């Protein structure tokens, strides 16, 4: 546990003063490069900080038995893209950029609305859901997560996949779950940092929020984002700076609940772009808040169906500098889907073989999921299948024929118009 107590602020300010709490910062284990300036009184609290993060006894642990709620943050890719875009467009010489995060808490309100609009939409297009083969595929997909052996429990809870099967029309009953925050949007806010002082574009934030809410009234402020602050002349960077707790203090006043702090580490000190989410917990000693502790939260990406299609498209073309055409060849896409399906089936049968051989220890849960997935494939007698196949084929041929006739008619009309209708 690297509990680093960073330079507390001017001691002449009382600890209760709004926005000037001393910052006690917990570095994340992965980035334990803190060059912490341990203040004179740091040692006195270090034990307390350790105890809090350990969740055990001690001075901090005794304050009303407050446990750090293990909540999850879901981030939509659009937010990350906004942050990176803002970072790219930052002022020259600016260390880091910050902005406001918009989204929903607990997912309830936000998602309910999503559901209702989704239902309307799906009904519009899938009003008359076909025939049998459709159910085969849908169910095959519905059991998608059965093919995945590793499934962490909290993520599974949140698996609210809008399938166009019957479950889409009736959202699955959700279990009582831990607090979740979903970040769906973000906008940049200008700010300036100099030493321990921070200036935030407060008016800008308010106006921008008002504008955003006009176009999208469902989102609320859930926190703020920042990119990593370069230190030591830009060779190194840190996710949480002293000023973070001041900004956090500001956002605590902006949103109804505890603000979430999202950090995208653009330092590129490792071969990746780490993303972290924090929430701040005041460290109290004998009822007096003394410091802010940033506690890392579980973070995962989440995207709606259409966002995902777009992101997948971009991932596929991310190697190409010039980008790729937005629409893809249908045949290639189909091939990709089939390959995925095949790979999943192979994973599955590999697992089963492994269990039969005894090389993999059997897991009842997985076994049940597999058998459920398999049993969802209906057996069709050949003659029934033939009939269905031919019916669909004829439908398709008929429609193609019709559309070709229409097109020909149009072409004739066009030609006539061109020659006569001058």
């Amino acid at each position, binding site marked *: 546990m690297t509990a680093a107590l960073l330079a507390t602020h001017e001691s002449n300010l009382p600890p209760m003063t709004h926005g000037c709490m001393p910052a006690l910062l917990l570095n994340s284990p992965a980035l334990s490069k803190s060059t912490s300036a341990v203040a004179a009184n740091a040692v006195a609290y270090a034990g307390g900080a350790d105890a809090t993060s350990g969740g055990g006894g001690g001075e901090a642990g005794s304050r009303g038995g407050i446990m750090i709620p293990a909540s999850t943050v879901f981030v939509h890719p659009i937010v990350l893209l906004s942050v990176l875009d803002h970072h790219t467009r930052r002022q020259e010489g600016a260390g880091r950029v910050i902005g406001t995060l918009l989204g929903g808490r607990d997912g309830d309100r936000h998602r309910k609305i999503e559901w209702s609009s989704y239902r309307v939409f799906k009904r519009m297009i899938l009003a008359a859901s076909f025939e049998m083969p459709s159910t085969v595929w849908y169910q095959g997909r519905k059991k998608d997560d059965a093919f995945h052996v590793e499934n962490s429990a909290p993520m599974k809870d949140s698996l609210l996949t809008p399938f166009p099967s019957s479950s889409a029309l009736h959202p699955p009953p959700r279990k009582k779950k831990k607090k979740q925050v979903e970040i769906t949007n973000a906008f*940049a806010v200008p700010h300036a940092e100099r030493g321990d002082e921070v200036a935030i574009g407060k008016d800008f934030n308010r106006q921008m929020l008002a504008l955003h809410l006009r176009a*999208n009234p469902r989102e609320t402020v859930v926190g703020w984002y920042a990119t990593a602050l370069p230190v030591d002349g830009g060779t190194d960077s840190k996710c949480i700076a002293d000023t973070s707790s001041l900004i956090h203090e500001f956002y605590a006043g902006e949103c109804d609940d505890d603000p979430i702090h999202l950090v995208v580490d653009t330092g590129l000190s490792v071969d990746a772009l780490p993303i972290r989410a924090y929430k701040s917990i005041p460290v109290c000693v004998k009822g007096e808040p003394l410091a802010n502790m940033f506690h890392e939260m579980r973070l995962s990406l989440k995207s709606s169906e259409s966002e995902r299609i777009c992101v997948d498209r971009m991932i596929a073309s991310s190697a190409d500098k010039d980008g790729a055409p937005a629409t893809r060849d249908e045949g290639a896409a189909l091939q990709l889907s089939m390959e995925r399906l095949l790979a999943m089936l192979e994973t599955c049968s590999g697992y089963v073989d492994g269990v039969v051989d005894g090389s993999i220890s059997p897991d009842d849960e997985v076994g049940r999921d597999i058998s459920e997935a398999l049993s969802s494939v209906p057996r069709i007698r050949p003659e029934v299948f033939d009939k269905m196949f031919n019916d669909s084929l004829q439908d398709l041929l008929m429609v193609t024929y019709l559309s070709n006739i229409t097109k020909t008619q149009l072409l004739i009309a*066009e030609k006539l118009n061109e020659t006569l209708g001058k």
Partner: protein
Amino acid sequence: MAAIIEADAPVTSVKLEGLAALKIIKHCQESLPTMVTGSLLGLMIEDGCLEITHAFPFPEPPDDNKGDIIKTGHEEDFNAKTIDDEAAALDGHEFQLEMMKMLREVNVDNNCVGWYQSMYLGTHSTMSLLENQLAYQADLSPNAVVVLYDPMQTAHGQLVLKCYRLTDEAVRLRSTGKNNFIKPNNIFQEVPVTLSNPGLVRALLRDIGDGMHGSYGAKANGADTTFDRLDLSTNPYLEKHLEFLCSWVDDLAAEQYKFQHYTRSLRNNVDNRNAKGRKAKEELAAAIEEGWARNDAPRRLESLLISNQIKTYCDQVEKFTGGGFGKLYLTKGLHYEEEKKVASSTSTS
């Protein structure tokens, strides 16, 4: 509008940044079933390539004109409609200026380069879209574009983002107010769209693809859309298309009827003059010429738009059925394999 782009080269391609694309998709998708619009910000870069780097939504107008979903009432008096639109646009205009002012402060590209709209199953050849786009191309820049996102078709696992602009021919026709014929194909010009991203974003996407931020690629937190394409049900989609085709063909017929009616009345007028011989012919020709140029003459553009739209539907149907055949035969192949296997296993036992 804040800035007018110098038109040196016409737009030949559009580079849409991932951020803008996601913003468009998010807005259009979340406001379903209402069809929405927004503004595009970006920059004209060399070689007729337009880079769209940012997008923001317009607030929903107080009365959402639901007619836009399927088609705008062609029969309605167009003047009344534009006045209505103007009232709504004023609010939107202020919003737009305000938003651009704010975005400028955080160094976002501050050029409005066009607008976006959600479209319903490829319906884009409407009078309202044409008017809007004309306004953009006339007032803002000849290089303004409209990006259309189709949430319905995207639900099939295929991203449908299209970019259009009016051809110079169409602009000329509209601005001179002539009632001439142009090829339906030549009203809108489709501009190829590429999705591109700056380096940092590509790095992030790589990370996501490699599953660094949760197993995004393998297990869907939202929904896995790879298998949407395997959906074999073709009927709802085709039914919808046929339905649309029917109604648009009806419209076309109504338009044609209007034309016939008008021609007949013109001819009657001339016939009444009771002139004979060669002079009469000339007179007739002149009268017809004059008649078509009159303001109350039916507009050709309407029917041209309709036929363009019908053609779009036909193309979509063709594309869809093409994919449908492939999937159908794939299923058949799979099924027969299975049958064979079952048959062989029973025969051996």
